[in-house]
């Protein structure tokens, strides 16, 4: 129950996050034994920069405690959708937390909502959507790539969020979302190369009482066509935005005080704390286009 229910102690089958430092995180499934190449069960040992970790030893440990590695130590953390986003195996490009936060907020999601997502991709957003609509809502997530859909579905089951997430292998551009979801959704999210082709299908699945729409597109040409399609389909409050989160690096700095009259360098120093963003930061992730379908 590691993603869907917060808990204290690590059990077999949980996913845990191994925290070495802020930039060195790993997600690990707690399986004490794994088969080797001769198909014999052997102790599961996870290798890190600071040495090996015996997975068996994690069982019974408290989340948030220190565990020893053969050449150091690390923390074992409770998984969260945000930590998963940082550690998940990439099968596609993924959406990161700043955009995810905005998407959830702008789609008016809360527990009990029904939200439709396409494509599933690597499931980064899906985990956060599942958290928001749980325990009694549903995320219906679609991907046209058969293998990706299958891997994602297995992951959702492994993370025990499959009671909230329903995965489908389907090309929604061609086929829409299917009749079963007609007029059921509170919100639709699209991260597709041709989102405008899905706008009419989105209209069909959104509740009669209205709902919200979001499309994430890296290119402005996609945004333009999506906005036109939204306008033509009766959407209101169409809004496009870009949202970035910059981390500030905090450092203590000391600089000499310059005296223009003196020849030699001054002994006097000034010390301050600086907080600057990294020299290079992501300057663009994608455009987020939101819209409301009013009740009909």
């Amino acid at each position: 129950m590691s993603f869907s229910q917060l808990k204290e102690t690590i059990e077999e089958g949980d996913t845990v996050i191994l925290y070495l430092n802020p930039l060195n995180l790993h997600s690990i499934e707690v399986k004490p034994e794994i088969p080797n190449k001769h198909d014999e069960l052997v102790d599961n040992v996870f290798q890190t920069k600071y040495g090996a970790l015996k997975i068996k030893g994690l069982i019974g440990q408290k989340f948030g405690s220190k565990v020893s590695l053969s050449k150091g130590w690390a923390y074992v953390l409770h998984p969260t959708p945000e930590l998963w986003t940082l550690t998940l195996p990439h099968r596609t490009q993924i959406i990161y937390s700043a955009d995810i936060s905005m998407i959830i907020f702008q789609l008016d999601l809360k527990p009990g909502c029904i939200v439709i997502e396409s494509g599933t991709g690597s499931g980064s957003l899906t985990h956060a959507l599942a958290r928001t609509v749980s325990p009694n809502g549903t995320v219906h997530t679609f991907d046209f790539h058969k293998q990706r859909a299958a891997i994602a579905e297995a992951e959702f089951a492994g993370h025990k969020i499959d009671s909230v997430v329903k995965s489908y292998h389907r090309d929604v551009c061609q086929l829409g979302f299917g009749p079963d979801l007609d007029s059921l959704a509170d919100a639709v999210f699209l991260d597709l190369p041709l989102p405008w082709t899905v706008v009419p299908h989105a209209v069909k699945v959104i509740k009669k009482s209205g709902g919200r729409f979001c499309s994430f597109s890296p290119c402005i040409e996609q945004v333009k066509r999506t906005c036109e399609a939204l306008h033509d389909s009766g959407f209101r409050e169409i809004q496009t935005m870009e949202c970035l989160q910059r981390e500030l690096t905090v450092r203590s700095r000391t600089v000499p005080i310059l005296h223009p009259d003196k020849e030699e360098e001054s002994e006097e120093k000034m010390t301050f704390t600086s907080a600057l963003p990294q020299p290079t930061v992501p300057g663009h992730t994608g455009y987020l286009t939101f819209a409301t379908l009013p009740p009909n």
Partner: protein
Amino acid sequence: MEPSQDQSTIKLGEYIVLQKGNFMKIHQLSKNSCVMLGRDKIDLTSIIGHKFWTNFKMVHKKGSKREFELIVCDKSESLLNLIDKDVRGTDNRDIWDDGSSQLMSADEIFKLRDRGCSGQDIVGQLLENSKTFHCKTEYSQQKYLKKKEKKYFEYVVVLRPNIRVIAQILFSKDPQKVLNLRSDTLSQIVTAVNLQPTGKYLLYENGCQGLVTAVVLNHLGGNGRLIHLYPNLHYQKHAVLAMNFQQKDLDSFISVRLSSFLKKMFPDSSCKVSGPSVGNCKLIACENSNDPQLESSGGLSSSEVINGGNTHECCERDEDISPRRGCLNTDDTEVSTEEIDPAHEPPTRQFIETSQSSQEQKLEDSALISDGCKRKSSTDDNDAPSKKSKWELEVDKAVDILSTVKADGLIIICKEYPIHLINRLIKLVAFSRNMVVYSMYQEPIVKLFCELKLRKDVIGVKLTESFLRNYQVLPDRTHPEINMSSSGGFLLTATVVSPEDCPS
């Protein structure tokens, strides 16, 4: 609270959002409700019972220039329909600003308005009497009409408030009154603290009109727990009220005064302080961070801490002792009544008064406002001494909950420098759970960052700022909007872990 769960109809007593063009306003709908939109007074009587998203047209009331009533209409006529597609120029080389392009005088235009002409008619006449409009390019014509639309738009749509709209309205109206907390940063608070609907969260909020409280309650949906700590005799709840929460949403809500909570939660550390280290945004009295006595004040001490006596007396004395507090209070009152709305103002005032007298903080009580607010204000106080008042029971409940199982997250949004508060509350947070601190200023949160870095029981301390840019998307005219918000505040996130070393 209400037997009918119908959320699609405009109901008396509930909060609504009025949208006129790009302008939005939160309003509580009372009997014979009127609302000011700009300089126009609008009678809202006719909207009750209609569905949200209905279009209403503003129609002049007889005999008055700026008073309107609302009638249902199919759709809002856009002024852009006035454009004659065949008449337009290719560029502006022949358009000269000599002040004579409009043939009508200002007086004549005012007269049209005073006669009760519709916006459509007035702008139609403006175009007819303009020498240059027809020479403008298509885009320039649209831009001109969009500008006129701002002034003459006469349609109103009524929306159901939700957290997105409320955050947007409060921020765009006056960012300072919500501590510059922009919607992107607000949304990041929810994810950074890993807000699970079934979790238990601890929140201290001071200075953003209940916005963060409303967000957390919205995301709990009545499932988990929110233990909300507030600084003074009453907390700001504008945003919470505007959400029209149902009783089931509020079941997860426990709201207690910080000082009462701390006293009960940590009875050993006595809450006596030598001087009133009144919390404000300056980093006062915080330097001796190892002094347990000072620590207990959390930089937020009230006069209650000083005399350790009856909270009710202290509430009143607070204002006298600390000019800063007094200032805060007027601020609050202003916040809740500023909706320039005669119908809204009295209940709000009344609420503040009653809450002062009774110290009850339960929201369902405040929701009674619309029903005339007949509250048993004094009964609680006058009960037999053995019987605990409602607020005491709330404190007991909060302490009980956190004594058995620790919190799944800590959120601190305030004007004050919160290091002492964090030192206290961090003990109540379970391991491997997150804390989030928001500050509108960079300097104090950088200082806080440095202090937290020294602690053994938090890891992954991260300081971020966010950037949000809106776009105009129009055929051949797509670009970022001219104005953008320059700061959405600063967020510090960290994970609480066990300070113990691993058994090796």
